[in-house]
């Protein structure tokens, strides 16, 4: 392949597909390389699709995208070993089209997205691993693949190669990931009849529920669990910072087994047939861990650039938006006849700064450090709150004032008065 492209996009996940689609649709000559057998076969997500980001790129995506269920109910559970204290938000507003969020199955969704990319005019090549970047001095001019004679050249290369981004590391654009900046998530998919799912979760056809969990579900490690309803399957999983798994010496597949035995979860998945087990690293280092995201002839998008809002469990929407803005930058430069130099590509960073992506990343910039240094939010508080609920709800002849005193005493014993005030302040600062 001696020919030259305007853009080479590496990877066919949400960020790469958004970039390739947007660039191809504007008439740029786009080559996209994917190492999987088909787009999606290497990709793992929970998965919830937030409509807004995709709608901006493909307004009519609902016509033919493989969507599982639109979410009408969001549950948050703070868990103990045998109980949870939860909140639920269920609303008809989320049950009225156009729907705001859907569960999806990535292997199917990514294939659909890739079809749209190809229809827009991009050349998509699968089963090909990019092994390195071709440099001319400090400038990226092309890629090396594992196919024979597999060098291809382009004016710009978009690194959409996911959380591990070996290419960026090899090229020296960034260092190795730190165990504290990534969460390891494991998940399973369990198949059940549609009607069983709908009766268990109190939902109608196409309606869905998402449950997010914190507390003992992670054995007190910084992390969360989740359970989502698909059309005829449930996905459930748990993710913790790698630094925590390492320090606590907990094996991830044991964590998910324990999760499935929790008395609140077991009946929901009862009788399901497990058909796949996945694992994936999620970049959760936040704003402070974002590597350089552009340079001479290259742009970085999606997970490769740490674009995940771990507090709100958002990632694929940030991925799509970064891919979209990267492509817009390249389109503008083409239209203005300017080269894709580092200085010109800085426009990508400016677009990100003005978008929700960087605003949200900045807002929660202190959160990773706060959670890492304050394990009580994942250990003592879930236990205290669950015990408090148990104490107050148990009718045993004890008067309510004495019960309140007991609850207060337990909180102060565990955290001290100043500790409680300090914790409240830390959380407020981190969310502010």
């Amino acid at each position, binding site marked *: 392949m001696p020919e030259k492209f305007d853009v080479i996009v590496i990877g066919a996940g949400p960020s790469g597909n958004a970039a390739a689609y947007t660039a191809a649709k504007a008439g740029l000559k786009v080559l996209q390389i994917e190492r999987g057998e088909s787009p999606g076969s290497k990709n793992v997500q929970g998965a919830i699709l937030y409509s807004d980001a995709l709608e901006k790129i493909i307004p009519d995506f609902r016509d033919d995208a493989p969507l599982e269920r639109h979410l009408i109910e969001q549950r948050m559970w703070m868990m103990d070993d045998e109980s949870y204290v939860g909140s639920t938000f269920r609303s008809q507003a989320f049950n009225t089209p156009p729907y705001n969020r859907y569960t999806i199955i*990535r292997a*199917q969704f990514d294939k659909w997205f890739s079809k749209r990319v190809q229809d827009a005019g991009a050349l998509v090549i*699968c089963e090909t691993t990019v092994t390195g970047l071709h440099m001319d001095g400090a400038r990226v001019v092309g890629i090396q693949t594992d196919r024979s004679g597999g060098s291809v050249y382009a004016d710009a290369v978009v690194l959409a190669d996911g959380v591990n981004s070996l290419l960026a590391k090899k090229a020296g654009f960034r260092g190795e990931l730190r165990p504290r900046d990534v969460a390891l998530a494991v998940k399973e998919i369990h198949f059940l009849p549609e009607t069983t799912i709908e009766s268990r979760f109190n939902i109608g056809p196409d309606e869905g529920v998402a449950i997010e969990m914190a507390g003992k579900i992670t054995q007190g490690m910084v992390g969360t669990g989740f359970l989502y309803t698909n059309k005829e399957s449930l996905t459930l999983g748990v993710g913790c910072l*790698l630094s925590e798994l390492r320090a606590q010496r*907990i094996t*991830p597949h044991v964590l998910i087994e324990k999760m499935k035995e929790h008395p609140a979860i077991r009946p929901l998945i009862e009788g399901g047939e497990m058909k796949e*087990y996945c694992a994936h690293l999620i970049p959760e280092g936040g704003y402070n861990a974002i590597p350089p995201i552009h340079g001479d002839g290259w742009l970085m998008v999606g997970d490769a650039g740490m674009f995940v809002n771990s507090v709100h469990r958002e990632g694929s929407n940030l991925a799509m938006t970064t891919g979209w803005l990267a492509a817009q930058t390249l389109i503008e430069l083409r239209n203005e006849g300017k080269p894709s130099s580092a200085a010109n590509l800085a426009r990508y960073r400016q677009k990100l700064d003005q978008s929700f992506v960087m605003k949200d990343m900045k807002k929660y910039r202190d959160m990773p450090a706060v959670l890492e240094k304050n394990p009580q939010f994942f250990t003592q508080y879930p236990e205290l709150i669950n015990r408090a609920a148990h104490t107050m709800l148990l009718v045993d002849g004890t008067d309510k004032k004495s019960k309140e005193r007991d609850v207060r005493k337990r909180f102060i014993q565990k955290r001290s008065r100043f500790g409680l005030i300090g914790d409240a302040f830390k959380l407020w600062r981190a969310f502010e």
Partner: protein
Amino acid sequence: MNKVEEKLFQNRYKVDAGRPHIQIADADICQLKCAEKPCVVCCPASCYTKEGDGRVTLITDGCLECGTCRVVCSENRNVLWEYPRGGYGILFKFG
């Protein structure tokens, strides 16, 4: 409790026989210098096994390509980690 092998049995793989995409750079470092062996603990597919004499053996056939072993080997940087050749490795049916 489900063993990890039973979980992995549900997955689809195209194994690149004889060409493991991950290798231990220096077996002596695992055996002699690394008491913690975080790869053995953290690998979600249990590809790494600690042997009786402290050696670590690696079989990549069940690898989920997450990158954990490479990231977690942060002191010794003893894991040579590449993606499988195009088309090989884990093939997620659902992801």
